[in-house]
């Protein structure tokens, strides 16, 4: 095999070069907007208007960033996106934690403690993964009304937890079915009950799957716009909605540099999660049976 790579025919070499060229082109194509965003956010408004889109900033400054964070106008209010950023965090953390934990319990039951109709239940849940956001809006609104939940952040936590459960349950269930059920049998003979088996054995061996769920849910929930617009208002709106308002505020000139800075801030948490957890994400998606 190794020999083949060294003694390539010229045609194969050209082919290989072509593949790399195409890959490089795609990478460039995808990275170009990020580049423009970063350089634009570091320029002054003057430079943005007069200069070249792709040029590096003449005098890089973080002023646009601090404006975006604390004094840009999002509609009538002009105190930046910081409040909304924290709104998003306050919504994100409980929603991700809840949907991951409940998904783990669901998956554990569906894989290890099968009950009559558990396969049907799982199939229905799978359909939940394919439901677009739009479909659930109306029933969700009715349910929230019925519950009388007023606080926007709490409403979003509930909505995202419920919507995410289909995915997290599927991730955990598909991981747990690869675990030999003799493991649970052994624990039962050792005297462990349903909860002890879950917390002492199943949850600790699911770290890769937990990583998958956390990354998946963080991305989904942080980036969501539709639920944010529909189920929250004013003070409690999440980051994405605020960003939209900031960009659409139509008084005076367009502050492209501020908008770009705000957009990067908005994308930062998901970028970080990928940077730190991406390794586990891949491992979790490809994880088979735990050897033991």
């Amino acid at each position, binding site marked *: 095999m190794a020999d083949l790579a060294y003694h390539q025919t010229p045609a194969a070499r050209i082919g290989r070069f072509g593949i790399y060229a195409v890959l490089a082109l795609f990478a460039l194509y995808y990275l170009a907007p990020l580049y423009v965003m970063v350089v634009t956010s570091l320029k002054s408004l003057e430079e943005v208007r007069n200069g070249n889109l792709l040029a590096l900033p003449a005098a890089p400054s973080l002023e646009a960033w601090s404006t975006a964070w604390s004094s840009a106008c999002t509609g009538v209010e002009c105190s930046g996106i910081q409040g909304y950023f924290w709104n998003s965090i306050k919504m994100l953390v409980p929603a991700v934690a809840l949907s991951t934990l409940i998904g783990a319990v669901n998956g554990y039951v569906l894989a290890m403690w099968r009950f009559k109709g558990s396969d049907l239940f799982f199939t229905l849940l799978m359909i939940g993964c394919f439901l677009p956001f739009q479909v659930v809006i109306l029933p969700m609104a009715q349910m929230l009304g019925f519950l009388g939940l007023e606080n926007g952040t709490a409403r979003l936590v509930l909505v995202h937890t419920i919507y995410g459960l289909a995915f997290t349950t599927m991730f955990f269930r598909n991981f747990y079915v690869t675990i*030999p059920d*003799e*493991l649970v*049998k*052994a*624990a*039962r*003979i*050792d*005297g*462990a009950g349903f909860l*002890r088996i879950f917390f*002492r*054995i199943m949850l*600790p*061996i699911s770290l890769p799957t937990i990583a998958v769920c956390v990354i998946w849910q963080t991305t989904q929930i942080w980036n969501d716009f539709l639920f944010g617009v529909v189920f929250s208002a004013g003070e409690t709106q999440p980051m994405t909605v605020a960003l939209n308002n900031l960009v659409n505020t139509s008084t005076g000139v367009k502050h492209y540099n501020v908008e770009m800075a705000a957009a990067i801030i908005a994308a930062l948490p998901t970028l970080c999660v990928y940077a730190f957890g991406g390794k586990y994400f891949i491992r979790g998606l490809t994880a088979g049976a*735990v*050897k*033991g």
Partner: protein
Amino acid sequence: MGALSIRNVKKSYGNTHILKGIDIDIDKGQFLILVGPSGCGKSTLLNMIAGLEDISSGEIHIGNRLVNHLPPKDRDIAMVFQSYALYPNMTVRQNISFGLEIRKIPVAEQKAIVERVANMLQISHLLDRKPNQLSGGQRQRVAMGRALARNPTLFLFDEPLSNLDAKLRVEMRTEIKLLHQRMGTTIVYVTHDQIEAMTLGDRIAVMKDGEVKQFGTPQQIYDTPANLYVAGFIGSPAMNFIPATLEEAEGQAIVRLDNGTETFPAKLGPLGTAQRPYVGKSVILGIRPEQITDQGSAQADQPNLQLIRAKVEITEPTGPDTLVTSQFNGVKVTARCHPQAGMAPGQTATLVIDPSKALLFDPASENRIA
């Protein structure tokens, strides 16, 4: 009295009947083997004894206590699984003490038990490793350690050696037997390996299709199998089954063995009352390979030996013996000969047969005629 008593136990999933009325009784300290082909219901029965599966009907008593409705933890049992089922997130020490911890045994005592068990199984140096840092044989030991730590009245083993390589399997087999002799606990052991069954068991239950085909001591099962199935399943190489017609001459039961050109009357001994109805009818003669051998290997003091000539078709040296295949009455017959007996394919060899040890089976019911 009865350490384990299984009374007319049945198991069905809907309309599929997996176990069709099992009756087994063993005493304290006995080593019971459940042996049978894949899918015959061995694991199902073991899981029912453990309380991991419901009993459809019948009763299971452990130490004179009806356990039908007790959960596994209250049955005073321990179990070793085929996949070992070690907790991957725990060290060997934690694996062994997990059950003790749940039972709220004081920490100091837990430690002492772990030490004792680890010493017994020679895994003391592995106590702080995780299962994925162990070899197959070491995992096997840890799994046994976890069971031993509990000191239960009944040990259950579900094919514990089937994931080990051949050499290790034999070693662990001896070790399990030693352990049993030393501790004198009652063991139920599932295997599909008939050699394991013969070497380990005090009692063997040969199962097939959810039924016990025969229950007895290893020697009973080997010498007087109840039917063709048991006769063919136990013993390697398998017993020869030769179709023949039963005849009587001067009170002696006789069958004729035809090697294609010559016929030899084999005297089976005095005709028994059970055999009488079969005179003149087809029977199946069952004779083990070691009861057909070369002249040099035959023990001359045996009174019933007879000489027959056979056309050798193939020879298969196993080392200690050479298996010689020839044909009688149109079926292949294996003989176990000395490697230096000079058997070669194509030649006509003289073999010594001990027909008095042969068995007769009814071709229709497949039961032994006794």
